[in-house]
């Protein structure tokens, strides 16, 4: 991962700067957006209107040069049909939505309208994953996405209640991951990805990863898929197995869908064209939450 190019590396650098400066300038929440200049919110894979009004759907748009700069040429097919900003507001008013963004209680998706919950605290127990009211337990025993943990009780590791519900008209879910970043004793930043729930009978290995892919039902030629793999909903309680109360850390969630046709596949079918061989024809849509930070 190139430093300075990704949100994750900014989050990591934020920990480093906080250790030096006493304040973390990169303590931000996550939202998704389109970066489109069309005035349209048409970001579904099967209804993608591109980023610029000059390159709306047409048989040549994938092979058009979209942007040419000193360091790179970006081709039309490299555009991503995304994304959305999700906000956990107490009511649907401007004030409540801004308050929620201010406390970073937000997440990003690449297009699906998934529901994602993420709470951190010291006392979540595995049984909380079976509660009838996950959000109530979450707010009672912990802080939501975007929040802060500190004052680690002696001998305890942070626990997280994490849950996701698929888009009602979208694809099933493959897995939920928690990404942890921390600042080591040596002053170097570190990161690690944990699979915390996976669909079906797949196993999560002792190192926190599930190496069995969920599978793929995409019929590229017809730009279709089926929800015969994956899960409609997921919930679990996860405890950091490698917690060191002396080290600054952050945790955020990534929810990954099963593979679905990418907009290039819909275009190929609709226009009856062949895409460039480099153009991916499937995608795995996902959601990213704002982190929860731990500060010693």
């Amino acid at each position: 991962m190139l430093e300075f190019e990704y949100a994750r590396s900014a989050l990591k650098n934020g920990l480093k700067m906080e250790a030096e400066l006493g304040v973390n300038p990169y303590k931000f929440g996550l939202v998704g957006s389109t970066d489109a200049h069309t005035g349209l919110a048409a970001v579904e894979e099967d209804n993608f209107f591109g980023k610029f009004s000059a390159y709306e759907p047409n048989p040549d748009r994938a092979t058009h040069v979209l942007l040419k700069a000193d360091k790179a040429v970006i081709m039309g097919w490299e555009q991503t049909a995304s994304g959305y900003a999700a906000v956990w507001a107490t009511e649907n008013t401007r004030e409540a939505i801004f308050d929620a963004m201010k406390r970073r209680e937000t997440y990003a998706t690449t297009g699906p309208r998934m529901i994602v919950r993420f709470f951190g605290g010291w006392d979540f127990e595995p049984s909380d994953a079976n509660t009838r009211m996950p959000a109530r337990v979450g707010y009672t025993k912990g802080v939501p996405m975007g929040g802060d943990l500190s004052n680690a009780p002696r001998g305890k590791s942070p626990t997280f209640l994490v849950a996701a519900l698929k888009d009602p008209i979208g694809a099933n879910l493959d897995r939920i991951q928690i990404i942890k970043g921390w600042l080591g004793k040596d002053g170097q930043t570190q990161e690690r990805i944990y699979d915390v729930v996976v669909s079906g009978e797949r196993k999560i290995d002792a190192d926190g990863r599930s190496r069995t892919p969920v599978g793929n039902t995409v019929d590229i030629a017809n730009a279709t898929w089926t929800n015969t793999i994956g899960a409609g909903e997921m919930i679990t309680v996860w405890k950091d197995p490698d917690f060191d109360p002396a080290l600054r850390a952050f945790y955020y969630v990534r929810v990954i869908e099963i593979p679905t046709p990418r907009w290039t596949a819909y275009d190929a079918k609709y226009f009856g064209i062949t895409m460039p061989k480099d153009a991916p024809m499937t995608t795995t849509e996902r959601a990213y939450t704002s982190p929860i930070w731990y500060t010693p």
Partner: protein
Amino acid sequence: MKFALLREPLFQFLVLGAALFGLFHIVGNKKTDAPERIVVSSARIDNLADGFARTWRRPPGKEELQGLVDDYIRDEVFYREGRAAGLDRDDVIIRRRVRQKMEFFAEDASVPEPSEAELTAYLESNLERFKTEDRLTFHQVFLSATRRGAAIDRDSQQVSNALALADTEVDTTAIGDPFLLGEEFQAVSQTELAGIFGDVFAKRMSVLELSRWQGPIPSSFGQHFVYISERIPGGAPPLDAVRDAVRREWSKARRLEAEQKLYSSLRERYEIVVESLPATSTEAEASR
């Protein structure tokens, strides 16, 4: 052939132009009039500092203030010279901005506070825009397709039997599975329902009866049994429920009116000559 170039009018024009330019350089250099003045008044400096403070939430430091003043002078020099050179003419961005300022000017001409009668009349003549959807308050028993897999139809039959016996509200916390968004839903519109559960579910809900358990209604999450306790009818709202929105829309309509009025009165001052319009593309195609 050799002298063909000398006979070119463009060449002649360029040579003459260069000669004039050279002459001006020699003669015109002795400028007699005093240089134009740029005065940065203390009011202007305050204004620059205010702008800075609005952005940075603190007043500018000494160097920053000097930088603002320097930049203002630079602005002014380029602005005056650019205007003198006519760079503001036929510039689509400047035209748009000036038009916008004229429109703001018209809109600013204070819109009065509407009377009760005006708001009522506006609401009545624009009802379509303020109509609301029916809203449902209900609770559900959810059977998760993910948790139950192939057993869901059998389980669904059992739940259906249990709920059929319950003609009033029963304690349903022991039946069914957790749902991430909960079991109770307050005043949810059809649009919101479709967003949460999908279109098929929302359509089914719109025709269900009140005050008894019904279902299962399928969604892509599994099956749902619902008890609708209240259907809050939508339709034409009373003024009090939408007063802010009506006032906002009324004011907007007044502003647009004012703008149109200003435009009409200004346009009257002009005699407008439009040379014949080119044929539109459809006409052109038809004539082919």
